């Protein structure tokens, strides 16, 4: 059995823990206590599940991608359709849970960081639904790449603050959100969007996303009569991946594969493949793999996908990597965009570029495992937000030149 219950201080093996200013410890303790109570409170669980079914649209369906399968060595490809959730990605699962907790703690304001904008949109949505004030920090570079999502957040009533420090991407948005939190912690909850950060975020965010894997495991069993050969997911911070992996951890015959953003290729140094190309260290409140130089300065990550463009990763993934229960591989921008195009044209689904890394990984894996394999892919988000990026990549913009 794979033991991934963290210790009382939030450690998964040597990873996780809390590396934050003392000013935040009380808020983290308060959050942990509120979460421990809510987890076993039937009223909270009923409200959470009710929102999932009547608002998010859970359970999300499983799609048998029979035409895409040809690109994956003929392996049977099953897509867990988190892209069909309200707001267009898996992010809403965690956001609704934390927004409900915010209310229970009597706080009136939420702040969030966002890279691709999916978590920001989800947070703005939940804030609107529950009547919370919402501020979203987003790297200036990302506000340009994801202008559509910026507009969505504003329509939903959130304030979007472009972050102009450092690399102007997700990492710096997290820095700025932490500065806001330490200043306004009395009335503010930091609605962190991934399974990183100080305890209890990694375990709490994971638990709110476990519905992905719980549903998918049963759906695959119902459809095929057996468990999948392998599960594939993209990994930035790693929330969608841990959500679908976790319920399979004790199914030792089921392979778990996480696909990191390889950018221009890990060998070029321009990538976001934290586990493949990084080393253990401390960033944003927890010990985990991260991209850093020889003196512990964070190295800026690079990926075509704003949602994966992050130099850290969740501590539980670091642990699963070290014990060999899950395997992590880099997928380049070019590989991801090829898989993006294939899914569009074989299944009529425009995937998020983030999720396209999982699709590309599954194609390689399918060629390795052969046509008898069943590969469950977490299609974590839809690609509407990426249309501009994809059109530029494939040369489809306007003037007929390509």
């Amino acid at each position, binding site marked *: 059995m794979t033991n991934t219950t963290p210790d009382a201080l939030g450690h998964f093996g040597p990873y996780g823990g*809390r590396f934050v200013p003392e000013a935040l410890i009380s808020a983290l303790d308060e959050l942990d206590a509120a979460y421990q109570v809510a987890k076993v409170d039937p009223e909270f669980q009923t409200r959470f599940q009710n929102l999932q079914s009547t608002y998010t649209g859970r359970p999300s369906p499983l799609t048998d991608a029979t035409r895409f399968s040809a690109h994956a060595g003929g392996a049977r490809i099953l897509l867990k359709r988190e892209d069909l959730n309200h707001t267009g990605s898996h992010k809403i699962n965690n956001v609704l849970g934390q927004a409900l907790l915010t209310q229970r703690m009597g706080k009136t304001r939420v702040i969030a960081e966002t890279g691709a904008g999916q978590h920001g949109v989800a947070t703005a949505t939940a804030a609107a639904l529950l009547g919370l004030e919402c501020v979203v920090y987003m790297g200036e570079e990302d506000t340009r790449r994801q202008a559509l999502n910026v507009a969505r957040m504003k329509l939903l009533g959130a304030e979007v603050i472009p972050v102009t420090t450092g690399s102007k991407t997700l990492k710096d948005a997290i820095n700025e959100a932490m500065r806001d939190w330490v*200043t306004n912690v009395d009335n503010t909850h930091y609605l962190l969007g991934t399974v990183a950060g100080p305890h209890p975020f990694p375990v709490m965010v994971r638990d709110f996303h476990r519905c992905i894997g719980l549903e998918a495991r049963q759906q695959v069993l119902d459809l095929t009569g057996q468990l999948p050969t392998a599960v594939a997911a993209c990994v930035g911070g790693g929330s969608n991946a841990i959500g679908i992996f976790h319920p399979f951890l004790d199914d030792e015959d089921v392979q778990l594969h996480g696909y990191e953003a390889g950018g221009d290729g890990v060998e070029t140094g321009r990538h976001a493949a934290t586990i493949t190309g990084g080393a253990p260290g401390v960033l944003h409140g927890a010990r985990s793999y991260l991209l850093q130089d020889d003196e512990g300065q964070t190295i800026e990550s690079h990926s075509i996908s704003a949602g994966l463009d992050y130099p850290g990763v969740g501590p539980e993934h670091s642990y699963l990597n070290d014990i060999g229960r899950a395997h992590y591989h880099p997928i380049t921008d070019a590989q991801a965009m090829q898989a993006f195009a294939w899914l569009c044209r074989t299944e009529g689904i425009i995937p998020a570029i983030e999720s396209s890394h999982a699709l590309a990984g599954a194609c390689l894996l399918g060629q390795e495992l052969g046509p008898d394999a069943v590969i469950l892919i977490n299609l974590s988000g839809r690609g509407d937000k990426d249309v501009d990026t994809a059109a530029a990549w494939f040369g489809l913009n306007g003037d007929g030149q390509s």
Partner: protein
Amino acid sequence: MSSLRSSFEAARARNSALLVGYLPAGFPSVDGCIAAAVAMVESGVDVIEIGLPYSDPVMDGPVIQEAVEHALQAGVRIADVFATVAVVAKTGAPTLVMTYWNPVERYGVERFAQDLAAAGGAGVITPDLTPEESGAWTAAAQAAGLETVFLVAPSSPVERIDKVAEVTTGFIYAASTMGVTGARASVGVRAHELVDRIRARSTSPVAVGLGVSAPDQAREVAAYADGVIVGSAFIRLLIDAETEADGTRAVAELAGELAIATHQPR
């Protein structure tokens, strides 16, 4: 007794407080930082904190962020931090390093402690190292003869103050407000309340930082704390100065005013 603890003991005997000044290594340049820090000591600053520039300073406001980013872009390395400490420590003022945790872990915890001690450093302030995660550090610091300094905040309940006091050997750094570094119009009552709460639990010296920038604030804090910590106000002067020499002069002038305010007997 270490130079740091004996400085605080001496101040207590005089019934006054110590002035602690912060500058990040490598800003405005490695030599410029050294010149400004030495000038601070000559103008009456008692203890110097040299910041180790880090790519993700989540506890710092815009002024220190700007200085640190400048230092990193200029290529400052940990060796420069130690070299800066070595020169400043020769003034006789206890000289500490303030650093986020990851650079220490990456450098090697024991190696960092030994190299800093060899440079004449007195200790390290670790703003994002919680007592729970500090085992390797406290052991290495003790072995190297360095003082540990941990932070508490207005939000810290007494159980947290006890935990911090347990691992602190130098002084307890009391954050005056909930927030990041940077000058503020007033220091606020929460700082005084916090110092009182710490005093009820620990005999360690307590220094107050975050937001202290002007002599009247220093005088107010010195009335109840063992130390007054000023950082961003000095850095602001270095940022605004036309030349490094102008910056050093301005820093020395402010240091002198702050020292008079801080050193007044209670």
